[in-house]
Structure formats: C-alpha cells, structure tokens
C-alpha cells in the first residue's frame, strides 16, 4: 500500500513559490491562509537554502493526538485529514504541529478563529469524492482523480516531490548518486577554500540536503 509523503530537495528548491501558488490555485485557498510556504535559511548569504513546507502527514501525527474533539483521521494511504464540521477552531493542533501546518482563517469582524484548514495532500476530506461540498470545505481531491498534489506536480525544478514514499525516495536517490560525481570535487567546500575569506566568498561548508549521502 502506498504511503503518501513529501520530500523537498533543498539542493534544487529555488524559492520560486510555484508550489505555494499551485496550491492556492487548485484549492482556492483564501488570502492569508497558507497551506504551504517556502522557508529560507541563510537568506542572502552563501549557504542559502530553501525548503517548501506544508503538512508532512506524519506517521504519528501530534495534531491528531491533541485534538480535543478528535476530528482527525488518517486515510488508507497515510494522509492526515480532519472533519471541519467537527473542528472547533481551538488551535491546539497548530501548537502541536512541528511545521506550523494548521492554518486559521479569520472568521468575522473580531478576528475570531475560523475552522482549522491545512494541506490535505490534495485528497479532499470527509465528503463524497469530488463533490462540491468537499471542494468548498477542503479543496480538490486530486488523489481520487488519479493525480498527485498540485504543488509537487508543478514544482519548477522538481525539488518538491510528492507521492508514494518509496517512489519519491527512489527519485531522490538517483539524483544524489549523480551529484556524487561532480559535487564531491566541486562542492562549496572545495570551491571556496578558507573560511576567513571575503564576505562574498562562501565559507567552507557542505550544502545541507545530503550532498554526500
């Protein structure tokens, strides 16, 4: 049975926000709610790396555990979803999630928290597959259409991989093997030498994201 997973290849992600926009487009996510976002470390300096983050559909999901009304469930293929009709907007899941994935659209004039919204792995929610009700509450159900998440499918550099954990691990492994050849010699470290050089020359370091693995 396929286990759905995301993997973002930091060696490839160029922080273009294609994934973020694809998600907005496909699921009609309103302004201010971000099911997916791109995080950049060391912005503007050598070593800059970006990663696209959303709900990781954890195997042992903390959000599921803390929800006081137990509105979370996990699908057969490992996608963590929740029932918005049951959700009380308490925000516990947001605190529990290591990725800040759960989002709370402001509801009404007093900044009250609306029902939680998060990445569904483009798998809709507990309504009939492909129904209007499902779309309005949870967004598209691409999985039931035989498609994978919009964000991963449209990623500009194929940095963001989404799908069966085994398949994407294979894809990633191919790349890492290839990189092994050239980047051993031409990685940041060898190309730049001493760490005490000018600010414009990157310090000695190995790129994160598994250059050597």
């Amino acid at each position, binding site marked *: 049975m396929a286990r759905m997973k995301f993997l973002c290849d930091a*060696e*490839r992600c*160029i*922080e273009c*926000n*294609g*994934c*973020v*926009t*694809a998600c*907005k*487009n*496909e699921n*009609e*996510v*309103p*302004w*201010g*709610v971000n099911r997916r*976002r791109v*995080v*950049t*470390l*060391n*912005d*503007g*300096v*050598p070593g*800059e790396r970006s990663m696209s983050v959303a709900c990781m559909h954890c195997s042992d999901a903390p959000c599921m555990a803390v929800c006081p009304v137990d509105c979370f469930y996990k699908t057969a293929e490992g996608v963590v979803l929740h029932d918005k009709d049951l959700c009380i907007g308490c*925000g516990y899941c*947001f*605190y*529990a*999630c*290591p990725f*800040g994935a759960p989002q*709370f*659209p*402001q*509801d009404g004039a007093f900044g009250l928290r609306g029902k939680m*919204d998060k990445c569904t792995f483009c798998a809709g929610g507990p309504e009939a597959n*492909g129904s*209007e009700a499902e*779309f*309005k509450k949870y967004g598209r159900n691409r999985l039931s259409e035989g*498609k994978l998440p*919009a964000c991963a*499918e*449209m990623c*500009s*550099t*194929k940095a963001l991989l989404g799908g069966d954990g085994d398949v994407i691990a294979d894809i990633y492994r191919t790349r890492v093997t*290839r*990189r092994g*050849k*050239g*980047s051993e010699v031409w990685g940041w470290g060898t*190309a730049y030498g001493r760490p005490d050089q000018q600010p*414009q*020359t990157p310090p000695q370091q190995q790129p994160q994201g598994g250059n050597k693995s």
Partner: protein
Amino acid sequence: MLLTKKFTTEMGKGASGSKRLSRHATGFLAATMDRRTFLKRSGVAAGAGAALSQLPFNMISEAKAADAKPAQGGEVVVRRTVCTHCSVGCAVDAVVENGVWVRQEPVFDSPLNLGAHCAKGASVREHGHGEHRLKYPMKLVNGKYQKISWDQAINEVGDKLLAIRKESSPEAVYWIGSSKHNNEQAYLLCKFARMFGSNNIDHQARICHSTTVAGVANTWGYGAMTNSYNDEANSKSLLFLGSNAAEAHPVSMLHTLHAKENGAKVIVVDPRFTRTAAKADMFFRIRSGTDIPFIYGMLYHIFNNGWEDKEFIQARVFGMDKVREEVMKWTPDVVENACGMPEADVLKVAETMAKNKPGFIIWAMGQTQHTIGNAVVRASCILQLALGNIGVSGGGTNIYRGHDNVQGATDVGPNPDSLPGYYGLAEGSWKHWAAVWGVDYEWLKGRYVSKEMMEKPGMTVSRWIDGVLEKNENIDQEPNLRAVVYWGHAPNSQTRGVEMVEAMKKLDLIVVVDPYPSATAAMAAMVRQDGVYLLPAATQFECEGSCTASNRSLQWREKVIEPLFESKTDHEIMYLFSKKFGFDKEMFKNIKVTNNVPSMEDSLREINRGTFTIGYSGQSPERLKLHMKNMHTFDVKTLRAKGGPCDGDYFGLPWPCWGTPELKHPGTPNLYDTSKEVKDGGLNFRAGFGIERDGVSLLAEDGSHSKNADLTTGYPEFDHVLLKKLGWWEELTDAEKAKAEGKNWKTDLSGGIIRVAIKHGCAPFGNGKARAVVWNFPDPVPLHREPIFSPRPDLVAKYPSHDDKKVFWRLPTLYKTLQQAADYSKDYPLIMTSGRLVEYEGGGEETRSNPWLAELQQEMFAEINPKDANDKGVRNGEYIWVETPTKARLKVRAQVTERVGAGTVFLPFHFSGWWMGKDLLDKYPEGAAPIVRGESVNTATTYGYDAVTMMQETKTTLCRFAKA
C-alpha cells in the same frame, strides 16, 4: 497570522523553553530574515484583495458565473496554452467548463517545462477571472475616469489621431507596441503603424535585449539565443553573467540544475548574491557595469595559457588578433581595480570554462541595460568564440529573453528600424513587403510624409519622452510628438519617471490599450484633467496565436475563454482602428476577418510568406498545432521528435525553419552547428558583411562548412547570380524561376533559391566568419566605458563615455558632457541597480493584480548592505528615502542584507502606484487598481543610453538613502 505574532513575542520574552514550542515552525520562520517574512505578511489583506479572497473556499468561477458548478458535470474541455510571463514557454492545460476557466493542469508532455511552473505560471488561471482588470473603455473627464462605449472610444480616439496626423504629420503619434502580443498581433501592429505612415513605433525589446540583438547579430548573423534551455543538459560549464535565472526564468533552472547534477560547473558572477548564485558552485561579486573588464580579465588568462581554440578562430573568426591587443591591456591588477575581482578568482573562472567544454555563457538584462550594452554582449560572444564554444551542442550564448513573446515581437513585430524579419527600411525591403501584403509600393509611400521619412528609423520607446520635451529644432523630424498610444506596455519600465510625467502633461492625447492600463492611467491622471483614453484589451488566454520562446521555438496557443467583460482582443482593436483610418482593405487583404476579428492563422501564413531572412517561413499554423498535440514525442535533451507525426522535427520548429512549410525543414535547434546538415538543422556563420575587409577574407576558411555541403569553401549569400554561376539555376521549377529572377534568398517569394541551396547542403545566407571586430559600431573592438553616473571618478577619466551625438534615432543624445558635468558620486556615493522578483513580471500591474502572487510580495523594498545601513542608522524593515541625482525620491522599506555588497543598493522594478511617497490609489480608474502598489524604481532612474540601440541604462546609476 495573528497567532504567529503572539507566538513570537512570547518566545522573545523567553517564556518558552519547552521543546514543543521551540520546535515549532514559526520559530524558524522568525529566526530567518528572508525578504518575505521580514515584511508583515497579511498587511494588504484589508485592501483591494480582501473582498474577493476573504470568502473562504469560495469558487472564483462561481463568483464569475453563478450557473457554473464545476463539481457537477457540464461541458468540460481542455485547451492547451502557454504561460504568458516569461520566455521559457511553459505549457499549460486549461480546463474550461461552460466557458469558465475552472482548473489548470501541468503539461508533463511539454519538452520545455515537463509540467513545471514558477509562481507566475502556476497562477495563470487567475486571468480567467481578472477582478482587477479594466472592464470597459474609459475616458478621463475632469480628472476622473468615466465609462464610455466602444463606439465612442474608437470614434473619439480615431478622430483625434486623424486630426493630429493631418495637422502635424503621422510622425506626431508615438505607438508603443508589446512583447506580450502574440506573433500575429505584433506583426499586424507593425504593419498597422506603417500604414498609418510612421516608423515611430517600438516595444519592450528596446529596453530588454536591443543591445543583444544588434551586438550579437553583428557578430555572427542572428541576434538570438544560440541554443536552448534544454541543451544545457549537454553542457559542462555554465557561466551566468548578468542573469538571475532562478527569479527571472525559474523553470530554466530545471535544466540548469539537472546539468549541474550531472557534473556541469555552475558559475555566477554578479553584483548581487542572487538566488541563482545560491545554487551555483562558485559565486563572485563584481561592481555593477564592469562586465567587460571581467571578460577581458578572463581572456587575458585564456590567451596567456593558450587555452583558446586556435583552429576554430583561424577557420571561423575575423579580427581576434585586434581583440587580443585590447585584452592584453587588461592585466590582472587593472581588472581588479575596475571590477573588484582578484586575479585568482578571475583565473579560476577562466580555467573552469576553458577546461570544461562545451559551456555556455548566459545573460539577460545584467549585460544589456548599459550605455555600453552593445559592447558588453559582444565581449561575451568573443569569449565564446575564443573558446570555440559556438556552434556546438552544449555550448553557446544562451541569451535569456524576458517576456513570453519578446523574441517573436523582435523578429516580426513593431520595431522602429525594421519591417518584419529584420528586413530594414530600405526601398528594396519596402518593395518586398509591399509584394507580400499585396499593396502598391507607391500607395505605401504616400502614407508617409516623404520617402526620406519612410526609410528613417523612428524614435525608440526609451526616448519617446524626449520626442515630446526636446526643443523642436533639435529633433530630426518635423513635429514634436503630440500623442502616445501605449498598446500593451508599462510606463514604469522606462527610465526617468520625473520627465515622463512632464511629457505626459504636455501631450494632446494619451491612449492606453491593455488589460491592466492602470499604471499609465494613474500617472496620467496625476498630471492631467482630460485627454486620456483607456481601452480594455483581452489577454493571450482570450485569443489564439503563436508565440516564440527564448530558444526560438514557436508554440501555438489555443483560445481558452472568450474575452472577459467588455474587453476585445488586440487584433480586433487594430481592425477597428484600421477601418476608422481607412486602410482596413489594404491591411487585411490576405487575412480573413470575421465579426471584426482577423484570422490569426491567415496572419501567420502571411508572416510565413514573407519572412525568409530568419526562417519564419516554415512554421505554418498546421505544423505548430501538430507539435502542440504531440509534445510527448519530442526528446527532451535534443528537442527532436522520434517517430510519430512530427518525426525528425525539432520542437516548435526553432527558427530558422528554412523555406516554405512544404519543404518540411525541421527547424534549427543550435545555431551555427556545422556537425549537422543544413536540412537537419545544421548551419554555419552568416556571410552578411561583405567578402573581405582590410585584405582579409570574411568568408569561412576552406573545409569549414556544414556537414555534407557541396561547397566546401566559404561562400557569399545566395542570389540568382550565384545560382547561375554554380549551374544550379536549372534546378528551380519554372514557377520558381519566374519569381526568383533578379532576387536573392531573402526576397525570392517562391522560396526556390533557399530550397536549392539547402538541397546542396548550403546555408542560404552564405558561409562567413564571425566578427570579433564590428567595424560599423562606435567601438569596433568592445571597450569598457564607465557609466554616465559612475561611482569611480578616477576611472571616468581613464574610461570616459562616448562623445555626445547630435542626431541619433531622431534625437540628440548626451554622453561625455553629462558624465563629466559633475562628480555625482560625491553626493550620491552608492550604486543603484534594479532587477526582478520571481512573483512579478515587467512593470508588474498584471501580476500585482493577481491575489495569489500579490500576497507573496506585498511591499516595495530596497536591499542595502548592513554596513551602509549602520552608517545611516537604518534598521531592517524601516522606511527609507532613496534619492538619485534627478532629485526624485522613493519611499521604500529597507531590507538589510548581505545579498548586496557594501556600496550597492538594489531595487526591484515591478512596482508602481506610488509617487514619491504618495499612494495614487485615487488616481486609478475605479476597481482597476492592482492589489499591491509601491514606488517605481524608474521614477528615480537617470539618463543614459546605449550608443547603438538607445537601450536605457538601468543597471548602474547612483543614489543615496536616509531614514524616512
């Protein structure tokens, strides 16, 4: 994001030591200061975007058409189109239900993008919605925009233009066309202006790659990207000099990073540590505007170490010895003093390029937008010629064009100095096109003031403001400009905003034709009470037609939806005006018009019939449509179809696609590649500059020719005389002979001369040498000259700008006198430069009106180095005033970052809607203001133009800043 805020404050107080909290994602969001998170994320939510986007999970399509229920059946069709936001040419499948664009799917089959999109491409469905567009024609009355009907608009605007034409001359109207038009519209607009009787027409290419087109074409024949993005997979080294592809051409990085993964060395040399640099193997910083010192610094090492390709140079290059003399002046210390790069670094780049062949040099605006742009790009070509990196798969000059169809609009569109296909404006060229159009040459001449004006290049879009403001006796045409028609072009992309507003004030009439005319509309309304008309044009998703990607491949877009609101397609608007002006019969003689809408297929066929120079002759609509349907049959690495209905073709028939469509030429994937036969996309350098110069032959040396050519020597371009001399004339059919007599390969409308030349394995344009010395340019050997506003007065003395020009593209143009009038760097010590953001395109009105994109980049900012910030007491996120020698001031947020070096200030160029600290919201037509507005960098940019093409200087000028 209320929660996030509270959360960070708590952590700031140290209230949280809990593992659970500190593990939280908001933690690392707050800890990194990237350019998105440092600005408050939902700041604009209360603005224009709110109404629509606050409805959670509301269907946009439903808001538009209440009866569309996408989830429950209805007529669903999928239309294949192409992203309109850059030249990569990413294909998009649009799902349309009951006429509403409801979904967008990736096209994995496309060999160009394999389904991938950046933020802009992933958001194009928003065009099917267009809440912030201009919805009906409007007119400025007493300082406010009022709705009018199309009839009234065409009649009033038409009458006014006709009156100006009569009172002054056709030259008093300036037409600004668009690189966002498809090929057919761009072509029609070129024809339209000529039939109006004027060469005063231009488009974005002027301010984007005009220096490339002129410089590169004069070096070896064609001024375009030599290979393709895809071909980078075959490369061993990639030098980005003046390109930030990760933001400007994001999906090209799919090919770049794939190449890198397979061992290609990626080098970025730039004033900024760009996101492209973040992905490179090596990054080196240079001072803005010193590309030539850097390139010559490399060549110095290349020549000294004997790394040049001597055989290649001997056989295929003219004048390299002259260049060598200049290069030898650029010793490592001189180079370092000019560009700031120490010898070891320059050597490292040179060695990497020399030892990892084939390789590319890649550039965009970083090289072109300088007063010496034409010389910079030629220096890049010379580098590749020296290395023998031209005419091979995996090596060349990959010149990344900007807009989705700027390549096509340059090739066949509205240029002031040429008819479609770079034919120029000489009498012979006019007669060629008169024949294609089926109109009388004398009639065309009669449309102009005189034959002289008919053959004199018009003004450029970079200088139209001087056509208005300059004293009449100084300009090289009868009247000053009295009207400007902005037809798909942003005003904030041209420099010298302060003077632009003065020019707008002085005009009799401003007409804007655009889906998003708002920047022009607001600027005009700021200084005028009347005399402005806004006409809503449809986007490329509301019509069909072809567009040319950066790699010269043509793609056919299907029409996705009908024009929204009251908007009309550009070609319909052209037709309506041509009727009003009384030349519709002539203009659309070969083109079917149905309900005022001219046929795009017929227009392309007319282009095919006339554009032999660059081989836009073989790409019939039928062939292009076949390619769009069979994308999956093309190999991604070579772009060639294996089997299937397009067997042997290169994707999109990259030009030159020689001869008639019946000849079935497959297109030319890599220019000047002699390892293939011309009929299979091979080529050699063009022989376009004569046979010999200073006693040296300009034709290629013996043995240097395209594969299997019957002529194994160099040879001039083909014409009827050469064919007869060679004894090949008899191979023409009788019908071809009749048309080819007295003609050359460019003007023979039968295509017979081309057919026979190719049959013999020869390139129709001859077999010549590339020119390292372009003797018809101001600096035949490219020379470094300091920008007019240079931060280095000591170097200005050594490398001064050009002499002033009295008449240049109809206008006087300043260089030296302005450069030496003062030491500007005393009061304005910092370099000001500008560039792209991934979320926005061009002037930005269109993309800043798209809520999905606007949310990601909500405020205009300036990147400043921590040193400069601390010197001025400015902190990250504070407002600052940036001021230039024009005295214009920009109020922007400071982003303090090491991305720029000390002494350099970077500003993105996509913003408009603020004017020196003031939001112009009330100047916009109601409901048509973009969601995000901000200061336009070009409000403050300074004077400075390339000495060949009038390219504006945007990349190097001076500024200072202070806390606001």
